[in-house]
């Protein structure tokens, strides 16, 4: 009997499944430990060649043993078997294999490996496109890791802020000491550890003088916080770090609904006690199940009581692997040979034969189990019968966070390793990452083709050599050409091995060859964690208008508008959206309608300099407004283009109300503050954003005035007049403004009282044959009237003149944008001008291009299309080159994407009541 076995102590009480078969695990087992304990060596298939792969490490650096854990929406693909702890009922599956793990059809790609070498993907881009189409299907089936779940994740993900004086990353001996020291000094301490238990290297090499559990208790007793299963995954500016915490293991059902938590931590000082990762050794078939890192072997033996092999060869270039020999011997395994690449080494445990100047050249096996290790010892080859080879090619300090923070690295020749140096942030590295054991460079002894460097992306020494041969000199090019270090493990075990090879090819030292950039996250992060609570509702809170519940009772079609939701139409008797909108618009034209306009931007501007500020912000005159009057206005950017539009009302001597568009409300709030506080801090005025203070109701139609007069008991103000009033027992502002082209009013009321006012107006309006109308009807009404909309005709590239608003500009200037408007290019007669279009045949395609003849370049585009509300017939608003002077011209609107076309005549944009007679009583 060969292969991994478990030391018979402790109970295997936890049941889990792997590829459908049930197994048992001990409390505290990682999936990798449990699989090995159950004698399972083959765990996955490789990315490109589908080569059989086993467990290589005992930590987060694992490149091979990737599995999918969990089912349905909770399934987590590409989970490292070494970084997931077994829980009752856990379902784990191997990946990238068909039809089964032990017999995989695509592994014949391995036979085609010469054709799939470095740069294979790039090379497929050359040559005829139809060849690529054929390659693509093949590549997509063959290459890959696990599959993303197709169902939504049922769990929540939390994002929380954290603050501490000292953040310690890594609960090994150095981290525990740093955290305890800081806690004893009275600091607010956070200690984070990616493992489920504290101890780090102590779990593999216990030290009776250090008790991690007791140290954790002490830190917590001093008010410190210790987070297990928590990875410091990103180190950003100003000592800001992101920690990803697993509240439950992958695929498990969280008791409180939250699977993971993302901490946003601002730390006064950061201590990185992140330790070392062992380097693998390149030799032929070094990706075979049964090839394992030396420290990993020791971890399995000491921490989990699992002996990964009965007859073990150890291959090393450093002293640390001798400890593995001791651990194996203690556990009853036979160490058949210790291959030390150096000429001398420390004493080995009794019974272990040490070979110096000895390097592994190849391994072979049968049915995925290792059988033979061939080594080059001195100048000659020798083979050993073994079921496991424990390898150590030296150590790599974990400097990822240090580098993300902007730190420098120093080259340590003895250890052939980069060691964290200075750091521009308040951050230091402590512990073994600063002192990797000496480990000299060793020339690989095996054939380059099957000597794997990046196990997860199937990159061998030969691929690096090929990239070099084809002219890829820089390490960044090497990475992109071979995909080295680009897999989910981000080259944790492969980068240094590859870099040594590149340096050797270049004939330079390793630091001269350079390093690729370290970027967050340190280990993969679930997408849901980044989305947080925003994983639902497209990542944003829904903004509810004050009358949301009232509208809901009418069962409207809702329209998302930015973050807002507004009623789009109120269909009755099974109407479609279009039918409902047309009926609602006709009701406004013939009787009256009411609509919710609460989302409009609104600002109260008060103080002796209120008018001064408004004349700066608005491009029209404001100062001459009498109390109780209002006017249409628009605002420009500094470059002269229209930014927003609205109305401005003088409520009292020193108090104005400015309204602006819904979509631009936040932008306008920021702009108002910029002008008032940054540009003109000396002005004596107050600007308060009252967008949400007021609920707004538009009442429009020939019967609107009568309805309002009856409700308020007062004659409503004439068009563009303002009056305060009482409606339904509530004080309201009545603004006689019209967007629809009918005599109309906006009634603004404190939002908490808006429901009573709406209900009163709705009842009175319905009694007059009217009805509520939504955004779609509003659009029909405003297009027919020729009113522009911000985000439609006001597209950030249109000037007041383009929109036919030039006549309203404040002749005295002095407003923001006045200087910009004087640029000669802005008075070019061929600019896009706002025009109306009347169809000479069918409907006008929205967004269509305006051309004179087929095949011509477009001369403009349709911004909004509609139909005449009463008369029928298609109309549209458009921006057309030189449009102001082209009324009467016939053009074609074409929408190639929709395959629609219409002949149109250019007209004024004001289709309905251009003289404004309907505003008069």
């Amino acid at each position: 009997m060969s292969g991994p076995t478990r030391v018979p102590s402790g109970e295997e009480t936890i049941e889990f499944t792997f590829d459908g078969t049930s197994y048992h695990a001990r409390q505290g087992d990682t999936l990798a430990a449990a699989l090995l304990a159950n004698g399972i060596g083959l765990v996955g298939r490789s990315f490109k060649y589908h080569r059989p792969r086993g467990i290589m490490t005992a930590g987060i650096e694992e490149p091979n043993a990737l599995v999918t854990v969990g089912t349905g929406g909770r399934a987590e693909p590409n989970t490292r078997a070494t970084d997931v702890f077994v829980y009752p009922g856990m379902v784990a599956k191997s990946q990238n294999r068909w039809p089964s793990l032990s017999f995989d059809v695509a592994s014949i790609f391995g036979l085609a490996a010469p054709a799939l070498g470095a740069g294979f993907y790039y090379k497929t881009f050359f040559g005829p496109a139809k060849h690529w189409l054929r390659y693509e299907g093949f590549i997509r089936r063959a290459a890959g890791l696990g599959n993303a779940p197709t169902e939504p994740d049922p769990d929540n993900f939390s994002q929380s802020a954290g603050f501490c004086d000292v953040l310690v990353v890594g609960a090994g001996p150095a981290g525990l000491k740093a955290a305890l020291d800081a806690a004893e000094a009275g600091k607010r301490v956070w200690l984070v550890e990616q493992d489920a238990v504290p101890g780090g290297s102590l779990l593999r090499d216990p030290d009776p003088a250090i008790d991690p559990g007791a140290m954790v208790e002490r830190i917590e007793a001093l008010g410190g916080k210790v987070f297990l299963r928590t990875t410091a995954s990103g180190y950003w500016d100003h000592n800001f770090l992101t920690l990803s915490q697993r509240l439950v293991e992958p695929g498990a059902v969280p008791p409180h609904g939250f699977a993971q938590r993302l901490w946003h931590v601002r730390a006064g000082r950061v201590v990185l006690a992140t330790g070392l990762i062992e380097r693998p050794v390149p030799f032929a078939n070094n990706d075979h199940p049964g090839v394992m890192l030396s420290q990993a072997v020791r971890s399995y033996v000491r921490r989990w009581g699992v002996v990964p092999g009965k007859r073990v060869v150890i291959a090393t270039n450093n002293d640390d692997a001798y400890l593995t020999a001791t651990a194996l011997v203690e556990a009853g395994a036979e160490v058949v040979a210790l291959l030390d690449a150096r000429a001398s080494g420390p004493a080995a445990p009794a019974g272990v034969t040490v070979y110096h100047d000895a390097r592994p050249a190849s391994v072979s096996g049968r049915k995925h189990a290792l059988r033979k290790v061939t080594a080059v010892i001195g100048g000659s080859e020798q083979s050993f019968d073994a079921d496991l080879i424990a390898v150590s090619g030296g150590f790599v300090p974990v400097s990822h966070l240090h580098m993300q923070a902007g730190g420098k690295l120093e080259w340590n020749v003895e250890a052939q390793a980069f060691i964290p140096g200075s750091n521009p942030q308040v951050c230091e590295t402590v512990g073994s990452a600063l002192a990797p054991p000496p480990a000299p460079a060793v020339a690989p002894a095996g054939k380059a083709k099957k000597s794997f460097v990046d196990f997860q992306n199937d990159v061998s020494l030969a691929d690096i050599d090929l990239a070099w041969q084809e002219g890829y000199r820089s390490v960044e090019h090497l990475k992109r050409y071979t995909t080295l270090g680009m897999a989910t493990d981000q080259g944790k075990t492969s980068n240094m091995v590859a870099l040594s090879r590149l340096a050797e090819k270049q004939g330079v030292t390793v630091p001269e060859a350079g390093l690729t950039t370290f970027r967050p996250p340190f280990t993969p992060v679930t997408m849901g964690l980044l989305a947080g609570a925003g994983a639902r509702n497209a990542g944003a809170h829904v903004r509810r208008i004050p009358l949301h519940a009232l509208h809901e009772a009418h069962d409207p079609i809702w329209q998302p508008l930015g973050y807002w939701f507004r009623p789009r139409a109120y269909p009755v008797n099974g109407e479609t959206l279009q039918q409902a909108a047309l009926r609602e618009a006709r009701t406004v034209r013939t009787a009256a309608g009411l609509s919710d306009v609460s989302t409009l931007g609104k600002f109260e501007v008060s103080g002796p300099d209120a008018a001064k500020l408004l004349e700066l912000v608005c491009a029209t005159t404001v100062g001459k407004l009498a109390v109780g009057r209002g006017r249409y206005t628009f605002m420009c950017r500094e470059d002269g283009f229209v930014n927003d539009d609205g109305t401005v009302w003088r409520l009292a001597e020193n108090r104005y109300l400015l309204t602006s568009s819904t979509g631009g409300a936040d932008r306008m709030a920021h702009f108002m503050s910029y002008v008032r506080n940054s540009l003109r801090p000396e002005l004596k005025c107050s600007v308060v954003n009252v967008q949400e203070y007021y609920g707004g109701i538009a009442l429009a139609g020939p019967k609107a005035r009568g309805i309002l007069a009856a409700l308020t008991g007062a004659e409503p103000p004439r068009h563009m007049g303002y009056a305060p009033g009482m409606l339904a027992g509530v004080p309201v502002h009545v603004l006689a403004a019209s967007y629809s082209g009918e005599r109309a009013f906006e009634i603004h009321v404190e939002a908490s009282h808006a429901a009573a006012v709406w209900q009163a107006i709705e009842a009175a309006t319905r009694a007059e044959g009217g009805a509520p109308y939504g955004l779609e009807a509003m659009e029909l009404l405003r297009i027919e009237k020729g009113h522009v909309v911000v985000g439609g005709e006001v597209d950030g590239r249109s000037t007041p003149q383009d929109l036919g608003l030039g006549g309203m500009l404040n002749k005295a200037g002095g407003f923001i944008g006045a200087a910009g408007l004087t640029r000669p290019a802005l008075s070019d007669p061929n600019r896009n001008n706002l025009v109306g279009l009347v169809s000479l045949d069918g409907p006008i395609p929205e967004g269509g291009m305006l051309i004179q003849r087929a095949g011509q370049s477009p001369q403009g585009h349709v911004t909004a299309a509609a139909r005449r509300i009463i008369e029928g017939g298609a109309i549209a608003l458009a921006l057309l080159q030189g449009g102001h002077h082209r009324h009467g011209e016939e053009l074609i609107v074409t929408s190639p994407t929709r395959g629609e076309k219409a002949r149109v005549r250019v007209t004024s944009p004001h289709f309905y009541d251009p003289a404004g007679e309907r505003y008069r009583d």
Partner: protein
Amino acid sequence: MYQITCPHCGPRAQTEFTYERTTDSVVDPAGDAQTAMQALYTRANPMGLDDEIWRHTYGCRAWMVLTRHRVSHEIHAVKAIGPEALP
């Protein structure tokens, strides 16, 4: 994410702030078109320290000038701007 020391609120997360523009791209509304366009389109954009206008938009809403290093992201100084205010 930066930590910005608001002159009114102390150290706060960058999330609460919005960047407006550099001080050399402020347009004087009373100025002529050429000066305005120069301010908007031909900024110094130094690879080093620059004076930037920021706003503590989701905090105290006040405006300030940050002297920030555009490579290291180090913030050397923060100066309040705005109307006269009580301490």
